[in-house]
């Protein structure tokens, strides 16, 4: 058994995102695993641990997948952390590899979400003729969703963006729609995106309103998909071929945070503080600053969310997210390309796959293998996810020096 503090992605794979009516979660997850193993040039015999996530599934996805790709008796961790599930699976494997318990590990996230409706909202209504009875920690006599604000994801994240506008000004419906226009435009170069058609600002603003100011194309696209990654430590990597060493991507930072208490977090989830905390830790661990990044994949679950994360990830000065966007910086030809994959709004958001798929995107660029959408000369990139409740995963990835 080898051990080193250096952690690398040896192989990584993302399936086509979209509708896969003939594949179940196990088929999709197995496809991602086979892709990642082939990319790494290893087999299940080399893998010492597996961590897997499938948020909407029945559980034990790791063992279900082992039965399709190889039951080797290794420890299997089933993880669940809302939209940060994939990043949490990866982080789990990284901790095991870094601790020296295994040389190599496998993380996978998979979701079947095509055709799913509005997420987050709901509650059980009172049956007719019943007498009022108090339920839950608010002692409510009926569902609070829709009667005391909203629990629907588009509405929650709309308020997160609007709150930024209240604090700093300049954020209006048109600005948020322009962010979405950017990501839909980026997706035209991504053959694995669920949607890869450009949309005009007018089309986006005139589409169905879901939760003002988020219209339908400004919301993350529910779709099917999977992603998987093989993690290895630096010592073991040195024993592999020069080609494997050359294509391996260094994990310069791997951070997971939860939301610390803030005054308003009981009424509106605070996705800002935990992201800022994670970003601080990630930059320190990697020894890089935001100015060193060549691309960023951030959690644009809604157009309103992308804006606040420019600020939270310190891609701009505090309060400067609107100016940052309007400067053209986050476009693929700008000085800090953000979501060149198309982001969750058009690449899609199969929940548990997202936190590994964003890392796959960054790996493609730092390896110089991103094809038509390659950010030229990319050496360092950052991948960020938020799971509401809340969890934040940030990984910083760097090109191999080999």
């Amino acid at each position, binding site marked *: 058994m080898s051990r080193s503090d250096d952690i690398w992605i040896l192989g990584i794979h993302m399936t086509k995102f979209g509708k896969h009516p003939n594949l179940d979660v196990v088929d999709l997850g197995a496809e991602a695993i086979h892709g990642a193993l082939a990319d790494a040039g290893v087999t299940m015999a080399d893998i010492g641990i597996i961590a897997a996530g499938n948020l909407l599934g029945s559980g034990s996805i790791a063992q279900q997948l082992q039965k399709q790709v190889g039951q080797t008796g290794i420890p299997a961790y089933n993880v669940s952390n809302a939209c940060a599930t994939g990043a949490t699976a990866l982080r789990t494997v990284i901790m095991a590899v870094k601790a020296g318990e295994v040389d190599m590990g496998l993380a996978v996230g998979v979701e079947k979400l095509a055709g799913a409706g*509005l997420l987050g*909202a*709901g*509650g059980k*209504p*009172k049956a007719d*003729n*019943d*007498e*009022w009875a*108090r339920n*839950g*920690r*608010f*002692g*409510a*006599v*009926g*569902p*609070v*969703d*829709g*009667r*005391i*604000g*909203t629990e*629907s994801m*588009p*509405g*929650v994240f*709309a*308020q*997160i963006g*609007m*709150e930024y*506008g*209240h604090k700093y000004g300049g954020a209006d*419906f048109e600005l948020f729609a322009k962010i979405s226009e950017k990501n839909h435009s980026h997706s035209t170069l991504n053959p694995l995106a669920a949607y890869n058609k450009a949309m005009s600002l007018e089309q986006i603003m005139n589409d*169905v*309103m*879901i*939760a*003002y*100011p*988020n219209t339908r194309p400004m919301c993350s696209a529910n779709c099917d998909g999977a992603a998987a990654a093989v993690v290895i430590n630096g010592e073991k990597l040195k024993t592999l071929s020069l080609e494997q060493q050359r294509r391996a991507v260094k994990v310069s930072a791997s951070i997971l945070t939860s939301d610390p*208490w803030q*005054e*308003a977090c*009981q*009424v*509106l989830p605070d996705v800002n503080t935990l992201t800022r905390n994670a970003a601080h830790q990630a930059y320190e661990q990697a020894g890089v600053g935001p100015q060193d990044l060549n691309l960023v994949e951030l959690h644009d679950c809604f157009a309103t969310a992308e804006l606040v994360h420019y600020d939270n990830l310190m891609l701009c000065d505090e309060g400067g997210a609107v100016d940052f966007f309007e400067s053209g910086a986050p476009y693929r030809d700008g000085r800090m390309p953000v979501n060149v994959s198309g982001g969750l709004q058009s690449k899609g958001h199969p929940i548990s796959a997202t936190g590994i798929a964003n890392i796959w995107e960054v790996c493609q660029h730092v390896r110089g293998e991103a094809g038509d959408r390659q950010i030229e000369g990319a050496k360092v990139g950052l991948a960020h996810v938020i799971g509401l409740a809340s969890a934040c995963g940030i990984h910083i990835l760097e090109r191999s020096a080999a």
Partner: protein
Amino acid sequence: MSTATQIPFVEYLNLEPTPHLVANECTSCGARYFDRRNACAGCFNTEFTSVDIPTEGVLRSFSIITFAAPGVEVPFVAAVIDCGGTSVRANIINCPPDPEHVSLGMKVRLATTVVGTDSAGVEAVNYGFEPA
């Protein structure tokens, strides 16, 4: 005049003497919670006292919800109100649900609305905020 018995929709709404919200305030750090807590999420203290929340505030954020769970009337305005330093989640009521009538920073005040009546004739009264 109605003779119906009324109860608040949630336990943290007090209808008497005039409708207002009541929070559990941590006796150590002053953090306020509308639900019951085993301990303060900010400082872990386990003692709380009841405090009345101001009924006037400022609209800090909102969204106009057009798609919601079955049984919820749409469109409606979901909002966060700053009531003298305590953040409150509520719907904006007695106001057209459109961006021309709802704006960030507008002053609002607590108002009540009847949610429904049960088989015993008891009305459940909810709160919202209306333009002040």
